[in-house]
């Protein structure tokens, strides 16, 4: 497989790795705590997309068994290809975890603002340097 082919075949992975690095970069490079939380969200979203990508089966449809009155419980004669539902279910849980993390991070940011009077990390660090 040539490199162009492998790039185009794996474009979803390239996209989500790029997204992940954007998130990680924001977490590391930004001093604003709210932006850090947003970066963390993007980072988590990339991981969630990874699971969603892997659930896709080529030509697959939504994993709901169609109701066929003639053949109760059957496929109506032909095979149906379903996408894998399990990763989606897992990601529902992961999204809940992500929401909880975001909520807690924002609550902490509010308290940091209350304690330091700023939401900027560098200013808070400078304040700590000064006041111990």
């Amino acid at each position: 497989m040539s490199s162009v082919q492998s790039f185009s075949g794996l474009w979803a992975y390239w996209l989500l790795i790029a997204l992940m690095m954007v998130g990680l970069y924001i977490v590391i490079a930004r001093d604003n705590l709210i932006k850090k939380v947003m970066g963390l969200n993007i980072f988590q979203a990339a991981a969630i997309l990874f699971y969603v990508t892997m659930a896709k089966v080529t030509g697959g449809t939504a994993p709901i068994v169609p109701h066929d009155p003639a053949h109760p419980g059957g496929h109506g004669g032909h095979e149906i290809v379903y996408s894998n539902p399990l990763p989606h279910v897992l990601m529902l849980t992961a999204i809940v975890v992500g929401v909880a993390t975001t909520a807690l991070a924002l609550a902490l940011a509010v308290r940091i603002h209350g304690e330091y009077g700023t939401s900027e990390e560098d200013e808070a660090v400078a304040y700590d340097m000064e006041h111990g």
Partner: protein
Amino acid sequence: MIEKILVLEVVLPLLAAPVCVLVRHPRFCRFFSLGIVAICFWIAVALLFEVRGGGVVSYQLGGWQPPLGIEYRVSTVNAYLLALVTAMALVVLSFDSRGGPPRVPEQRRHLYYAVFLLCIAGLLGIAITGDAFNIFVFLEISSLASYILVSLGGHRRAVMSAFYYLVMGTIGGVFFMLGVGLLYQETGTLNLRDIAARLEPSLDDRGTVLALALLVVGISIKLAVFPLHHWLPNAYSFAPPKVSAFLAATATKVSFYLLAMVLFTIFGAPFVFGELRLQAVLLPLSILAMFLASGAAIFQTDLRRLLAYSSVAQVGYMTLGLSTANATGLAGGLVHLFNHAVMKGGLFLVVACLLYRVGSVHIDALAGIGRRMPLTAAALVIGGLSLIGVPGTVGFVSKWYLVSGVLERGWTAAAVLILLSSLLALVYVGKVVEAVYFRKPAEIQPIDQVREAPLGMLAPAWVLAAAAVFFGLTTNWTYGVAREAAELLLAGGI
């Protein structure tokens, strides 16, 4: 019988947390959570007796057969962890901190116990479950709870430390989730034993190697392996003292189990330590942790910070045991989980006593405190001696087996370095003991009014100090179980 009550180990604290939120009575919540943890401890001990000698207890949630359903599966390794976590939770919760954490008003204190119970439920869940994604969920439950607990510390910087901990912990959690995702892609299953059976790790398979890398880095953040330890010193030194004691004694221990389980059970020692040669990374990092973190501890002027840096160094000993990948060394690492929990938990409880009576744990403020608080200071000395690894304490037991394991592997230099790093521990412990017993009290901070800590604080601290000596002299139980767990892990089982 026992497999029916196995699931209660996680369900009880998980359900007790909302009960605390609803009842809103701090005294009730305190004794209620203590009672729940006592039941969990009893279950854990019963499980440990049940599975000793190679037994396994399994529970299928909702009656779904594994590998499709989630399975709770307890062997010696898990039972050891469960007993450790519940025992430490029991001792720390019985510590009477006289008014709870400083930033929590009386009418909100029930929430503190609710979060504590959630943290315990998460840690027990990680240790008990046999499902990879379930581990991620419990990992995040315990982590979220511990961020909250850390943020309740009295100092302004506690909140900032909790934020750092959250950012680092979440990155670690996402790495873990990605690793599990890749494993699912490779094997099509989430059941740990099923993954282990289906996975055929090889260096040519990039997906597997990437999964291993993501899992190891993710867990290493939570475990505070040397270059990823940055969150730990702040989190432990600004958290409420009781929380520091609990987290130091349990959270990193459970992460260590997770790392060992991933390396030995899922990927298998022949691949990780034979083909991939992970020890080439893990061993230098462990040794760096032992020296640099101990070195940093020497220069700390705050006792809590000193102990926190020492914790990073102690994680180095544990991962050193892991990287030997032989039964003696791994058992040394596993027995150090218990031993370090006992001594560091005890030391942080001593810190809580000192904070309550003296108001500060700055080394200068502790000058001459040994005369005013003899029992607290004595517990401090026992814990300190154990950190150094003096014979007759638990620290010696761990180091003995670690050094034996390292020598068995033929790494003479590493064995010498373990002994040399003990000298650094001698320096930082000596610094504290010198201040507490031999230095004159600072004039600006008179300690004439300082009295011995109350019994409700002293007793738990002394239980752990006594355990540090008792299990230093009797190693049959601790090392016996650890050895069995190590052999089980090396054979690829859990």
